[in-house]
């Protein structure tokens, strides 16, 4: 319903007052605000009598003159009379006088002693008759507050109506909302914006705002409260305000607040930073501002963790199965029952066409329009709970409702596709110049022969790792790392924050940096991708980069080396690099599924996955000849 609350009227009154530099809210400001409403009772009854213009003129004459910059009282106070009127208005609302702007106008008339009423009297308006008109008024539901203007500074950025609505709700007392630019590309569907609210002509520091699906937003706040709140370094982003969720929209909004000096520059994202300050500074930033600053609270809190790869990394892969929903009666006595976290999900062995029963899975994503449902192992934040993912299509959304986090007792379906099918299809889409089912992938010159990820990933999922567990960000790609004006790392997007494999964040970051820094240098063919793989191969095996490397590639690899240096420090005490390369392989193999990424990115990442699997197979601790890494290695040996 389109209606106005007293709170909204007060916000407008506040703006009116601020415009006049009054900095208090008097009855005159209330009346001004009431006349600003669209379709409100105040405008209507005064207009009927043809006196609206006169009232505003006289109000202007008698109102406290235009104020100056000097303030004579703290804060933005309501006058005693306004407090009294508000009390009465709330009483009238309790007695059933709606909408709220009508009750407020009524309370002003009832008070009888205020400036607007004296003006009505001066104009010869019969206030008793005015009261009657207000009481008998019947235009209730059409009234609405005027909307706050939103300006978008970046011409490439377009906001839709829902996004604007959420933004207005997020900054209820702003007079103007300026969207400076987008901080993320929006590959994930979420918009991360730099927003600057303006209030009483004062321009406030920009705020980072995330607009996303309301369920994700609520989950992020939940995760933030559970995992992040108490373990953030003092300079990072905080979620202070509750997320904004509107009942009529599927979109929600979240505000990140940063502690920094007023009036300083806005934050930039990692890509802009690299372009502006160069790779050397980026490497420095990764090690100092990001790793060193967050380590004591996050990755440094690690403890020994013996796990099977699927427990931490299966969530990155496509669904284990895609089912077509069948009625429960389709199951017979011989039908196989699948349970969450069963070996079937990483070993495969459920053929297309088989009918299966799912028992005790938890709903993760419900897409009502597509009539599809994603279920997985559990409802908790841990990665293992996202394992055993199955997509069920053709569910009956008309008669059954599913919600996120709900445990579904029993589902029956026929297997349409397995994970192998999905992955092969994704690789087929890369227009391969090789047999996608060959055991090994060979580069054009024949120097390198790498295992085919499509055939090896399943065995990798079964591998046991002696790793470590710590609080992790869970989605530490370049878009989620902002750099504050003082060079601090500001992390955002805590939807996947959890206790997880310590190296997870760094594998995600390496893949993301490769995509941002190295891929743009490549040409649109497989040979060029293989060329970049050589560099990565050399870096991984020797820790150094050949001197004849092109400087742009060198810059990109410097950032990668900074990530590897951190990974080296975070390897479990027995220090097998395979721990990191397995993580990297898993993070890379999911990239071909990102349809909105360039073909080159997807091709290159498929090869990165192959290279990482090769490196993981050799399983040797490496002698990396880099000073920073050497120091870290030495430290580890002495402590062990």
């Amino acid at each position: 319903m389109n209606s106005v609350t007293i709170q909204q009227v007060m916000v407008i009154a506040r703006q009116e007052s601020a415009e006049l530099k009054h900095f208090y809210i008097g009855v005159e400001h209330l009346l001004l605000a009431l006349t600003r409403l669209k379709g409100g009772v105040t405008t209507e009854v005064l207009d009927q009598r043809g006196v609206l213009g006169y009232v505003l003129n006289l109000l202007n004459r008698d109102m406290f003159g235009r104020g100056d910059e000097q303030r004579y009282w703290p804060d933005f106070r309501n006058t005693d009379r306004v407090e009294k009127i508000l009390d009465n208005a709330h009483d009238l609302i309790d007695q059933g006088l709606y909408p709220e702007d009508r009750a407020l106008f009524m309370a002003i008339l009832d008070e009888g002693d205020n400036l607007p009423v004296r003006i009505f009297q001066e104009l010869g308006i019969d206030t008793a008759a005015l009261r009657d008109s207000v009481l008998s008024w019947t235009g209730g539901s059409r009234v609405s507050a005027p909307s706050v203007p939103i300006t978008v500074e970046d011409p490439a950025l377009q906001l839709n109506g829902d996004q604007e609505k959420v933004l207005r709700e997020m900054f209820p007392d702003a007079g103007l909302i300026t969207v400076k630019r987008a901080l993320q590309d929006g590959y994930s569907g979420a918009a991360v914006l730099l927003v600057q609210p303006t209030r009483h002509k004062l321009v406030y520091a920009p705020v980072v705002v995330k607009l996303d699906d309301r369920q994700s937003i609520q989950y992020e706040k939940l995760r933030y409260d559970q995992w992040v709140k108490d373990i953030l370094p003092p300079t990072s982003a905080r979620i202070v305000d509750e997320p904004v969720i509107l009942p009529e929209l599927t979109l929600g909004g979240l505000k990140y607040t940063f502690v920094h000096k007023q009036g300083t520059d806005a934050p930039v994202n990692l890509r802009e930073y690299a372009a502006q300050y160069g790779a050397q500074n980026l490497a420095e930033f990764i090690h100092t501002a990001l790793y060193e600053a967050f380590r004591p609270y996050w990755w440094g809190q690690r403890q020994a963790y013996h796990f099977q790869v699927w427990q931490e990394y299966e969530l990155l892969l496509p669904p284990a199965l895609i089912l077509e929903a069948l009625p429960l009666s389709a199951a017979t006595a011989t039908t196989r029952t699948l349970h969450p976290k069963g070996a079937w999900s990483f070993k495969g062995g459920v053929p297309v066409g088989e009918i299966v029963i799912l028992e005790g899975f938890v709903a993760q994503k419900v897409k009502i329009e597509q009539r599809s449902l994603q279920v997985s192992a559990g409802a908790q934040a841990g990665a293992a709970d996202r394992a055993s993912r199955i997509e069920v299509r053709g569910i009956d959304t008309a008669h059954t409702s599913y919600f996120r986090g709900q445990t579904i007792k029993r589902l029956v379906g026929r297997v349409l596709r397995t994970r192998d099918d999905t992955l092969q299809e994704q690789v087929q889409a890369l227009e391969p110049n090789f047999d996608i089912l060959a055991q090994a992938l060979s580069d054009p010159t024949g120097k390198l022969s790498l295992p085919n990820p499509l055939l090896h990933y399943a065995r990798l999922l079964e591998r046991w790792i002696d790793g470590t567990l710590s609080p992790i960000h869970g989605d530490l790609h370049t878009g989620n790392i902002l750099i504050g004006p003082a060079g601090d790392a500001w992390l955002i997007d805590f939807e996947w924050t959890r206790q997880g494999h310590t190296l997870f964040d760094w594998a995600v970051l390496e893949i993301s940096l490769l995509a941002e820094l190295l891929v743009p240098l490549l040409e649109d063919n497989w040979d060029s991708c293989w060329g970049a793989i050589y560099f990565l191969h050399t870096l991984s095996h020797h820790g150094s980069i050949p001197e004849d490397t092109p400087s742009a590639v060198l810059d990109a690899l410097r950032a990668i080396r900074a990530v590897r240096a951190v990974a080296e420090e975070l390897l479990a005490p027995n220090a097998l690099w395979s721990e990191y390369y397995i993580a990297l392989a898993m993070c890379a193999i999911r990239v071909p599924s990102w349809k909105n990424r360039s073909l080159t990115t997807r091709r290159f990442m498929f090869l990165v996955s192959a290279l990482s699997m090769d490196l993981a197979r050799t399983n040797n601790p490496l002698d990396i000849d880099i000073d920073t890494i050497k120091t870290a290695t030495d430290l580890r040996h002495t402590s062990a």
Partner: protein
Amino acid sequence: MGKLWRKQDYQNRFVFDIISVRKVNVPDSIEIMVMSGPYDGSIHRLTTPHEPSSGYVIGRRDECDLSFPFDRLVSSRHARLFKNDGVWYLEDLGSTNKTFIDKRRADGSFAGRERIEGIHAVAIGQLIQLGRLWIRLQSE
């Protein structure tokens, strides 16, 4: 008959005035309600004049008995209010933006505003405008 009355002037020096004994012993008290502006609705009771010889002075300065430092349309010493023989009088002290009173008919309807020049008798309940600021004599 007069008496030396010690008071502080605006520079906090003690000065002496000769005033009538009657006014010293029985300060006439009056309640004033602010009727517009940031203190709309607040009530001030005036009991002891700073300068008993001139009654209660209303203006922008802090030294006034009733001061409105935030309103630039009120003069530093705008008007004075005093009682004589049971009647309250208002005098404009040469203010820039003048002093007005709100005139009403017997039925309470509005009958125009009148600018005050010289000394003018005012009744309890009278609305007074100093510059743009409205006040009202509330009760004695």
